[in-house]
């Protein structure tokens, strides 16, 4: 299975994406999945449009991308966290 490139983005690329990034890192490790996590500002997503496999973000996405986009707010609030994790795992295992 090829290593997936996962973009983790928030508005400023400093706060919420840091939390989400580390959570996904742990999740991937627990499930023994090798991922290439890239933490960016949402405005930088375009740079990776040809290489990314998945975008996980706390910011609103207005653009259509060729890869799936998963809302990551549950990593901050804890509400619906298990569902979000499952959704991400499913994409990582594809």
């Amino acid at each position, binding site marked *: 299975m090829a290593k997936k490139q996962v973009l983790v983005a928030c*508005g400023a690329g*400093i706060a919420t994406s840091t939390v989400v990034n580390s959570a996904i890192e742990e999740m991937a490790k627990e499930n023994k999945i090798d991922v290439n996590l890239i933490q960016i500002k949402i405005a930088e997503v375009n740079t990776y449009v040809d290489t990314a496999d998945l975008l996980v*973000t706390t910011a609103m996405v207005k653009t259509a991308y060729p890869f799936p986009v998963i809302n990551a707010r549950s990593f901050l609030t804890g509400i619906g966290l298990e569902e979000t994790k499952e959704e991400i795992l499913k994409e990582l295992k594809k």
Partner: protein
Amino acid sequence: MADFYLDENLVFLQAAGTREEILREMAENLVKEELVKTSFVTGVIEREKEYPTGLPTSSSLSVAIPHTDIEHVKKDAISIALLKEPVAFRVMGEASMETSVSIIFMLAMQQSHAQLTLLRDLMDFLQNETTLQALYDSKTKEDVVKLIDRKLSLSASKGGDR
């Protein structure tokens, strides 16, 4: 880990006004305390419009974590406002959903991808109804600083001795 600054001068009790007025008051105070540059004020207000930070929690108290780009910041700090009446903030990552915010944590951070411990502690804090309510019920600025200091990894917090 870098140090995170919080003292009683960064705490607002019974804060009132519109969303922008409160954000401005908090941000201008950070400028006055020489923790951020003057550009932080516009930065954080504009950022909130474009990328809102309202977060509904599992308790009845919603929070917001406004912040902006690192270049506006001189020193890592956190400012906290307990709102007299809830104020509507747009929910993070949503086009039109709003949430009535009772507590604002304004974050000043001068490095990307840093402060993971602090941020994780903060998110844990937000997910705990009991501590969130205890924070909201704080009667003095000193109580706020003490509670946050106990729950978050603020290694440079100098609660009250400034």
